[in-house]
């Protein structure tokens, strides 16, 4: 059997497993079950498109460990699941996501941040040294998750970067509060949005530059940082060196890398990336509303939905009879905090509460673990369901939307006890 045909047959097996819900649907499984790199079917979720699965493999960008290559240019690289077995994602394994292929190497000494806009006072651009010295430093542990994390799992599939589960990471971000920088410039009462631009650009001048805005009240909140450190080190180049925006709770699209310009504006930002991209049918999700951006039938994506990831089991795995099932993983939400993670090993008939790990802050990954005794043998379907402190819980069935955002469907991992 050639490598590629072996690959294809495994893939068929994985996708056959991922869609089915009942134990009766499963037959015997191969003892050594090896799924292709970055298979979401292997995690008890719907499978990413077959073209993507065949095209992706591990590749190390300079300064990074091998990550799951989605695309080279612009670079889109996903974090493999093993790096989610600790609550903090190492910098070298942190996912990479760019929209535009022109990514300059910015030197710390050359970097300057312009603070301006029609609803801001005058202020000279800030150097990195000034940013670090003139403002009180602050730290937050927060999940950065791409809006389209798990897009590849949408059924029917939708176009875009076909992410599996690893377009996310959790880090300790250190920087200064955006509100302190804006206070220095002065925010006028007519301010509606704060608009952010980074140093990246498109190969073609006609392509809309990647520019994003936040509601002024979010921009002025305590938690939003201009960060220059990640897990105690300077930001990696691929994650926004020398400084990036950190918007805890909100999806990664707002976390502008290589931040170069902040503008306080009296009117909404209507470039393509705000007015057309990163939008959801209005009211489909119970997330915060971006009220200055409601000028069309849809609305911008804002904060994350509650979610979890089981990291200790693989679909099709054989588990020794007589030993408990060890169900471990991470859970997160938009900053309400994780109230509980429940685990089921009988396809959702009964649930038991997992033990939560150390609370690293309301925006952080929260570890969970449960050792579940197993009586008898045969197939088991393992699930984990996170609930936030506001009562939001993961969904049984996908809430489909055209751009493939907010996938938080409960995993169904089939294991064979023998």
């Amino acid at each position, binding site marked *: 059997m050639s490598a590629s045909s072996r690959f294809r047959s495994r893939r068929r097996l994985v996708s056959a497993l991922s869609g089915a819900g009942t134990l009766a649907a499963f037959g015997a499984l191969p003892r050594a079950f090896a799924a292709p790199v970055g298979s979401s079917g292997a995690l008890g979720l719907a499978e990413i498109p077959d073209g993507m699965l065949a*095209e992706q493999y591990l590749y190390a960008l300079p300064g990074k460990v091998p990550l799951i290559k989605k695309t080279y*240019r612009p670079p889109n690289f996903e974090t493999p699941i093993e790096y989610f077995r600790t609550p903090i994602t190492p910098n070298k394994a942190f996912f990479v996501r760019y929209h535009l292929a022109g990514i300059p190497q910015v030197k710390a000494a050359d970097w300057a941040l312009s603070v301006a806009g029609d609803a801001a006072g005058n202020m000279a651009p800030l150097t990195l040294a000034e940013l670090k010295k003139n403002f009180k430093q602050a730290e937050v542990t927060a999940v950065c998750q791409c809006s389209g994390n798990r897009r590849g799992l949408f059924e029917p599939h939708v176009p875009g970067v076909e992410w599996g589960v690893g377009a996310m990471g959790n880090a300790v971000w250190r920087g200064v509060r955006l509100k302190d920088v804006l206070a220095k410039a002065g925010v006028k009462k007519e301010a509606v949005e704060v608009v952010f631009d980074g140093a990246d650009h*498109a190969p073609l001048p006609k392509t809309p530059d990647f520019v994003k805005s936040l509601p002024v009240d979010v921009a002025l909140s305590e938690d939003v940082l201009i960060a220059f450190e990640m897990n105690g080190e300077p930001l990696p180049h691929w994650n926004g060196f020398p400084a990036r925006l950190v918007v805890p709770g909100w999806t990664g699209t707002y976390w502008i890398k290589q931040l170069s310009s902040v503008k306080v504006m009296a009117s909404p930002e209507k470039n393509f990336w705000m007015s057309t991209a990163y939008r959801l049918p209005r009211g489909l999700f119970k997330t915060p509303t971006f009220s200055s951006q409601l000028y069309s039938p849809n609305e911008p994506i804002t904060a994350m939905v509650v979610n979890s990831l089981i990291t200790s089991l693989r679909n099709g795995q054989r588990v020794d009879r007589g030993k408990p099932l060890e169900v471990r993983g991470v859970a997160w939400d938009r900053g309400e905090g994780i109230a509980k993670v429940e685990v089921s090993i009988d396809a959702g008939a009964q649930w038991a509460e997992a033990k939560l790990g150390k609370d690293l802050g309301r925006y952080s990954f929260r570890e969970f673990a449960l050792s579940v005794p197993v009586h008898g043998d045969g197939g088991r379907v393992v699930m984990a369901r996170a609930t936030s402190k506001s009562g939001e819980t993961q969904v049984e069935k996908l809430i489909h939307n055209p751009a493939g955002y907010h996938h938080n469907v409960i995993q169904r991992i089939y294991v064979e006890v023998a």
Partner: protein
Amino acid sequence: MRRLALLLVPAIGLCVAGAAAGQENKVVLKDGPGKDKAMQCVACHSGDYLPMNSRFLDKAGWTASVNKMINVFGAPIAKEDVETIANYLAANYGKPPAK
């Protein structure tokens, strides 16, 4: 084709500053009618964007994608090439016909 080559060379030269760029030679697109026109896509992004979005788009889906590249992102692709490119994509990276 000469015009295409002239167009591609500076565009690629401009945007391959990223370190991963050399690696993208590993991405080989399928041979088929219209591939030469479809190679205009790689002026702005690596070829892996095409197999990544397979195989679930039909010709209408691929046509919409190509038109988005032109109308939203400003890709300098001639209108008369859209059909050829969409045919290439639908044939090589399109939704398999219903059984």
